[in-house]
């Protein structure tokens, strides 16, 4: 029986040693690998946390084959997770990912790392060590970002086929603004090298610190070419993205610096917007285009947070308007394999939008009205008249074979690289 999973955590570089803190635990039966799940899991991670590796548990006779599988897997995982990414890696980003092989008989752990930037990279040996209590005090950064973006749909584009293209282009520009923006932490513009937890005694009782982030960007980018007139584009439509997203990022507790903080929170801002847009478009693609949705404000999936059992961390999920908390709970069980009581899921961070404005000219609206009938705070049971849209989500998630699941350990672990 094979067991496999993804390793999730955050990277922390201290001088010349890479020191990682990750969360790993045992998971259930896993049969095959499905690329989609890597992405889904990645979307559940707030800023500062990412998929840092994969693990595989096999009987001893499959150990050799396991190494090859792990290698292929780690590159595939990285490829799929970074596909829709709107921000760019910097030189300081760690691109070493971890593969862990555990022999089911001897419980021996073989740990290797690969540099996923280099397709030809070879395995580097690494040490896998267990530590306790390191994850309880990861500092937290929060902010909420307002969006009011209007993307033109140029004449040559046709909706809905080109919607993804138009949105991606527009979001790319916006993401660059956020990436280049200034980040204040607790109201201060500090130089990047400043340590955020300065002044704390080393072995003091670890209490989670929360920092408030503020992001400032120029109101507009000055024009690069010397234009004399405003540019004129003929458009066949427009896409307006409006609302507020709630963002969260965690920092490792080993001397986090201001520049790491600004980086992780900005990336979470960008990821949360691009994730939900992607999910919305995927859903649209699956459902098939309904003509009635033009002129109607469609609600994008909103972010909810769920605590990681035994730790002061949260993961997140996205709830479509016709879903309810039990759907989130089910998904968490599927993906991350832990039980989340429904009342511990925080759905209050992002407010439910008001009833969408309806374009009376379009009569093919009934279908949408039904879909939005469950648009209120926290229905305990799914709507009595499950609409097609509601059904499709359920089948979508259930239909996927349980591929890779997140594994979580009750205690924290640390990984020390032997290489330079």
């Amino acid at each position, binding site marked *: 029986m094979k067991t496999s999973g993804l390793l999730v955590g955050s990277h922390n570089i201290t001088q010349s040693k890479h020191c990682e803190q990750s969360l790993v635990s045992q998971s259930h039966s896993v049969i095959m690998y499905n690329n989609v799940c890597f992405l889904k899991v990645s979307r559940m991670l707030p800023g500062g946390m990412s998929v840092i590796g994969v693990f595989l548990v096999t009987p001893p006779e499959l150990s050799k084959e396991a190494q090859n599988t792990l290698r292929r897997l780690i590159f595939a995982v990285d490829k799929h997770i970074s596909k829709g990414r709107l921000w760019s890696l910097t030189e300081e980003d760690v691109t070493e990912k971890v593969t862990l092989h555990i022999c089911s008989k001897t419980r021996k752990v073989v740990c290797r790392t690969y540099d996923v930037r280099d397709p030809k990279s070879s395995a580097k040996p690494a040490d896998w060590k267990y530590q306790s209590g390191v994850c309880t005090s990861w500092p937290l950064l929060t902010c909420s970002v307002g969006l009011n973006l209007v993307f033109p749909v140029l004449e040559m584009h046709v909706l809905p086929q080109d919607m993804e293209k138009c949105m991606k282009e527009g979001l790319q520009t916006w993401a660059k603004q956020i990436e280049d923006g200034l980040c204040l932490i607790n109201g201060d513009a500090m130089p990047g090298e400043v340590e955020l937890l300065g002044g704390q005694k080393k072995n003091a009782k670890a209490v989670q610190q929360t920092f408030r982030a503020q992001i*400032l960007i120029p109101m507009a980018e000055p024009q690069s070419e010397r234009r004399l007139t405003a540019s004129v584009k003929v458009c066949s*439509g427009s896409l307006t993205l409006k609302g507020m997203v709630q963002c969260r990022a965690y920092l490792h507790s080993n001397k986090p610096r201001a520049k790491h903080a600004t980086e992780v929170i900005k990336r979470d801002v960008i990821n949360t917007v691009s994730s939900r847009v992607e999910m919305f478009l995927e859903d649209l693609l699956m459902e098939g285009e309904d003509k009635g949705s*033009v002129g109607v404000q469609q609600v994008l999936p909103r972010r909810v947070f769920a605590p990681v059992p035994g730790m002061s961390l949260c993961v997140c999920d996205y709830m479509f308007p016709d879903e309810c908390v039990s759907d989130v709970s089910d998904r968490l069980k599927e993906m991350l394999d832990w039980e989340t009581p429904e009342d511990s899921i925080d759905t209050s961070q992002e407010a439910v939008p008001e009833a969408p404005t309806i374009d009376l000219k379009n009569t093919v609206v009934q279908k949408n009205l039904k879909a939005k009938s469950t648009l209120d705070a926290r229905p305990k049971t799914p709507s009595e008249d499950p609409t097609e849209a509601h059904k499709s989500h359920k089948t979508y998630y259930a239909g996927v074979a349980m591929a890779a699941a997140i594994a979580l350990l009750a205690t924290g672990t640390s990984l020390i690289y032997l290489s330079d």
Partner: protein
Amino acid sequence: MVVGNIILRLRGSLEFKCQLDSTDVPHVQKVISRTFEALGSQVKAESLVLSLSSSPVFLWPNKGGHATAGEISPNRPCKDLQQLIQTDDQESSRKKSAKKDKNNPTAGIINLTLMTEVTEPGVLSAPTLLRGSKKHHLLQTTLPMDCVVSVLSSESISVVCGTLVGALCSQLGDMEKVALRHMKGTALLIPQPFHFLLPAPVGLVTVVYPAGVPDSQLETQRKELHSLFELPDDRPYLRRANALHFPDEPYKDGYLRNPHVHLNHPALENGKPYLVQGVYSYHHYMQDRVDDNGWGCAYRSLQTICSWFQQQGYVERAVPSHKEIQQALVEVGDKQGSFLGSRQWIGSIEVAAVLDQLLGVTSKIMFVSQGNAECFRELANHFLSEGTPIMIGGGVLAHTILGVAWSETTGQIRYLILDPHYTGAEDLQVITDKGWCGWKGPEFWDQNAYYNLCLPQRPKTI
């Protein structure tokens, strides 16, 4: 300029974006006005942030002037902001410009940039996507906001913030007027602000002009403004070239401007100086990779004069090269074709001819023999009424006269000379110390020589 005042300059870009469902004029105008109105609300929003240049300080002007840095609170005087600005080492230039600072009213300017806080909490809910399907023209550009306010240095930060936001709003209003006035179909000319330092009591003024429309076509606007500000109607004050040059923005062309202002006054008892007005550039031997050492002095003096007419807004053409000067003389028939590419000297007559041909400027020619002191009165009057640099040719040399001074008590006369024979780099220290720009006594004149002076006249235009 008012003593005890501080100047704050706020710059940034605002995104102008609007959808035109049709191209008929009333609709277009309505949409443009609405877009400017929306920008006005944006500027008054709590998410507006002003970044104090070269400092870690940010201000929220629509939240009462709340700032990031702990030491600054909204009721502190705005001059406290200056202390937070991190300047690079300016010790050496401080000494030189100490004298200049008294004359330069815009020294010590506080620069701010427009920003917005995307994390400003609002009452928005989770994101929604709206698909619009109406065909339209999308008009898009960025507006180059540039506001300057002059406030008492003791004025509180919160009040100053309010003044700045007010300046932004009124500039948006000016931009809207200019945009609508010059709009043709869907072509929206970008409104650009220019700052002018007008004579007292008017002071600092900002005017918005449409990009791409040359000064020659904006005479009506200038006439309106001249009468509004009660400016004389025979000389330009509001052409783009007259725009105020801020001290923290170095000239990009590399030429020195007005080196004479760094000189001490001539050592004369009761000496009254009559000086060139406005701004000129110092042109001399070996510049622009042209080796005219030994023959080009009059050409350089002519270039200095052309630079004056360009910077006072009379002409838009660039300072002519030696080639262009020679070409002009051939065109007017003053010289034969063989003159082109030669190293022949020119005199004040030729200078006057070129000024007329290339710039449309007429000149008075004055003939002086034996360093006649009588010419002093003419020169003084010239600087009072025209204020243009004078080219003087005689003997084997050509120079530029930038001013004269006379002592009532001793009767001594001094001449402010700009020497085009300098072959070195644009080093202000060397040029002033070694007298390449300096006050000279009567020994400057060769008693046995005859001199011709070219006195360029200001065209009567705005």
